[in-house]
């Protein structure tokens, strides 16, 4: 369980959609706009980029699937917001418990090997 262990393939695979979602200049720009000025509608967002509204919506959907943004319907429009928290908090929580397990299992190891 040392820090130098390679990251398991399954974990890398799980993280891939997140990085794929971030690996596009328009999507990074959308994310930055939502972070700095959100929540925003597609109309407001498309004013800031040189692509169609449909393309903006598609990009937002990719970000949404990666859990980076979410949308709320308001009348005929959808309002988009940056959503860093769910991902972050879940990982921090598990990280803390994971470290706790390392300590406990270290004690189990010492206990049965002596």
């Amino acid at each position, binding site marked *: *369980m040392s820090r130098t262990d390679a990251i398991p393939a*399954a*974990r890398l695979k*799980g*993280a891939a*959609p*997140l990085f794929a979602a971030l690996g596009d*200049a328009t999507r*990074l*720009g959308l*994310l*930055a*706009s939502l*972070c*700095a000025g959100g929540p925003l509608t597609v109309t407001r967002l498309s004013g800031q980029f040189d692509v169609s509204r449909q393309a903006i919506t598609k990009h937002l959907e990719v970000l949404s*699937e*990666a*859990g980076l943004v979410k949308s709320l319907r308001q009348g005929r429009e959808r309002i988009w917001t*940056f959503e*860093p*928290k*769910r*991902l*972050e*908090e*879940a*990982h*921090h*929580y*598990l990280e*803390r*418990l*994971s470290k*706790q*397990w*390392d300590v*406990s*299992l270290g*004690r*189990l*190891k*010492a*206990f*049965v*090997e002596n």
Partner: protein
Amino acid sequence: MTTPTTDCIKKELHLRAPQARVWKALSDAHEFGTWFGMKLEGAFVPGESVFGRITHPDYEHIHLEMKVERMEAETLFSYWWHPYPMDKKRDYSKEPMTLVEFRLEVADGGTLLKVVESGFDKLPPDRRDEAFRMNDSGWTHQMVRIERYVTN
């Protein structure tokens, strides 16, 4: 959410001890309490709960319940509990529990132990908020930096 890792914790370690020895350290409530650092009352029986208290002076307020799920001689021990119940003012008893599974197998003259704790996605969201508050700077700072980068 596309990350499957938010629901469980997995650990694997090799122990230089016979499977029977490891099994005893897990399945005997007194021995479990000794290495885990808690005082447990009673014995582990599938379907029944064992109650205990953390013995570390900083965490003595923590009362734990372990509801034993399965015990398959020398290969599988599993139980339900409330993970990390740190807040003494909070009543955890109504919250969903997580399932902890210990699987044992012979390996390299010793025992390979696999531990999986699952069910975190069913916990109330504010359990995670607590952890999030401790370190909430990550993404927000990153995004401010990205914003600066793409707008300059």
